[in-house]
């Protein structure tokens, strides 16, 4: 704990102004009398403490990180360096347009690039993360129906495999959700969808490739069915990496999409954010896009605000969203260029299908063995759990001992004992081969020394943690013992 290094009166003096001027003009009853409970440490103690903490993390820079649905690809360093150039890093969000043309040019270019890769009519970059993009998307669907006086539509459909943010976002927009089952082949159950559609349907939230890692083959038919019922289609961009430059959500019939730039466009995940979740829309939803956006008249860039977009669903952040993330994504897009976009889908798909094939050869069961993998795929360890009493969590924890971050576990919920594996295009063949060897070894251990696997990890800074205690005896902040 950083507080362990704290001693009264110790400070990193060089970092702050030399003086603490008297507070003038502030009434005494508004002034703080208690000392804020912050650590008092030297700069070196802080540097050492946080360097050591960092070393307790797995990260893309240090480990293979095949976390399904999270697209843990390499984060090029140039993106960070170039997004942090002085004029960009020090620009105040409310600086006048005269001092913002360079920044706005980057944003406008990015809007155009994202329109082109998704096949959408217009893009707003403002949502701060995927979930906020989802919120914006569903709010636009609502605004569209409301503007037409079509206010009986109360329901958003979501596949049973959907990420939890989908139903949560729909509810934040005042909708009820109804789940649509997934068929045995991984595609959505189209007959069940047909029955669920009706005058109460506001829209459906899908991702394609779907959450189970396969391409929804009847997407055009689904799109026509939903549109005929008067609903709109929402594309969750979680899995855009799989189809970049191959097929576009706009061409599949989607009306609105969000993109996770921290996935597909390689901005860093930062231990849980920041992300960026731009939204793209078809023509009929354009009036409702969240503000601000950047407009270009051929000469100057300017902000589009509530004044220009009177029907907008509004603002989602105080300024222009996670601007620095947008700049990183922009640099990445320019480094890749049009040919690089195609390669993202090609090599992430090649890696996933290769890894799937090799793991099946090593005796693991695919959840959808008859299907082509997209950029990710699902294994089910149901057999191992039943025969050996070693479950998916045990496998995942043992992988950490072998220096691999575990894939996504127990998601999607409908596949028992599942691992959702996404290698991404950044990984070399030998890294994938190594992963297969690790999985093979753990399987052998599970057969011969199950306790070794069930007690794993053994080499991490801590062993398995007592989650029940964490939730029952809440300790959420260090309290100084005085």
């Amino acid at each position, binding site marked *: 704990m950083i507080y362990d290094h704290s001693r009264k009166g110790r400070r990193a003096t060089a970092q702050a102004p030399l003086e603490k001027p008297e507070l003038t003009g502030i009434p005494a009853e508004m002034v703080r009398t208690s000392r804020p409970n912050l650590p008092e440490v030297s700069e070196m103690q802080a540097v050492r403490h946080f360097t050591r903490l960092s070393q307790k993390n797995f990260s893309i820079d240090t480990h293979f990180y095949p976390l399904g649905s999270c697209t843990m690809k390499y984060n090029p360093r140039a993106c960070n360096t170039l997004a942090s150039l002085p004029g960009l890093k020090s620009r105040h969000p409310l600086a006048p347009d005269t001092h913002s043309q360079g920044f706005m040019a980057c944003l406008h270019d990015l809007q155009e690039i994202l329109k082109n890769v998704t096949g959408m009519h217009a893009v707003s970059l403002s949502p701060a993360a995927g979930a906020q993009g989802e919120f914006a998307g569903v709010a636009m669907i609502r605004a569209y129906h409301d503007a037409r006086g079509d206010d009986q539509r109360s329901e958003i459909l979501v596949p049973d495999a959907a990420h939890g943010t989908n139903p949560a976002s729909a509810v934040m927009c005042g909708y009820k959700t109804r789940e649509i089952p997934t068929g045995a082949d991984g595609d959505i159950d189209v007959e069940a969808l047909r029955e669920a559609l009706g005058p109460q349907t506001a829209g459906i939230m899908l991702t394609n490739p779907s959450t189970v890692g396969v391409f929804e083959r009847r997407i055009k038919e689904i799109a026509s069915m939903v549109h005929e019922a008067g609903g709109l289609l929402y594309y969750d961009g979680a899995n855009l990496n799989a189809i970049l430059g191959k097929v576009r959500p706009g061409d599949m019939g989607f009306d609105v999409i969000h993109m996770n730039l921290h996935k597909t466009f390689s901005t860093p995940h930062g231990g849980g954010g920041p992300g960026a979740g731009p939204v793209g829309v078809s023509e009929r939803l354009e009036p409702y896009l969240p503000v601000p956006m950047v407009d270009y008249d051929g000469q100057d860039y300017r902000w589009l605000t509530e004044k220009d977009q009177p029907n907008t669903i509004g603002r989602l952040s105080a300024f222009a969203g996670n601007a620095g993330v947008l700049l990183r994504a922009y640099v990445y897009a320019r480094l890749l260029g049009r040919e690089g976009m195609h390669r993202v889908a090609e090599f992430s798909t090649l890696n996933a299908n290769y890894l799937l094939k090799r793991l099946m050869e090593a005796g693991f069961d695919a959840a959808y063995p008859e299907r082509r993998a997209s950029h990710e795929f699902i294994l089910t360890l149901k057999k191992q759990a039943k025969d050996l009493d070693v479950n998916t969590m045990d496998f995942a924890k043992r992988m950490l001992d072998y220096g691999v971050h575990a894939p996504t576990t127990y998601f999607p919920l409908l596949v028992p004992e599942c691992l959702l594996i996404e290698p991404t295009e950044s990984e070399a063949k030998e890294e994938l081969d190594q992963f297969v060897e690790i999985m093979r070894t753990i399987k052998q251990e599970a057969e011969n020394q199950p306790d070794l696997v069930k007690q794993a990890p053994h080499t991490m800074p801590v062993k398995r943690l007592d*989650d029940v205690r964490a*939730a*029952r005896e809440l300790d959420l902040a260090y309290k100084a013992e005085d």
Partner: protein
Amino acid sequence: MSNTPTDRRYAKSHEWIKDEGDGSLTIGITDHAQELLGDLVFVDLPEVGQSLDAGGDCAVVESVKAASDVYSPVSGEVIAINDALDGAPETINEDAFGDGWMFKVKASDMSELDGLLDAEGYDALVAEEE
């Protein structure tokens, strides 16, 4: 061998409901339900005086990895809650049919009990789900 008490009725959503004979009904979740959820870490109970609709959600039980709504099998008014669960949710894990009771209701229509399962019916339901 089943240890499902035969002195009460059961809902398909895994609540038990016991007629105390004094006009009040005691409600909790079954031992099977607590087993599915695992170690409980929190219980959110309705408030005394709250009116309930049959089949409406009125409480939540949380484990580390799941949260489940508890539905009232009958309509009525909450007349007591089990305060002892606050700070000791594990009581439900330990004694779901006894000390782990959740709340008591004054039912507005006792005939709603007729549609519920008896112990045998509930055991059959559990067997079917497995």
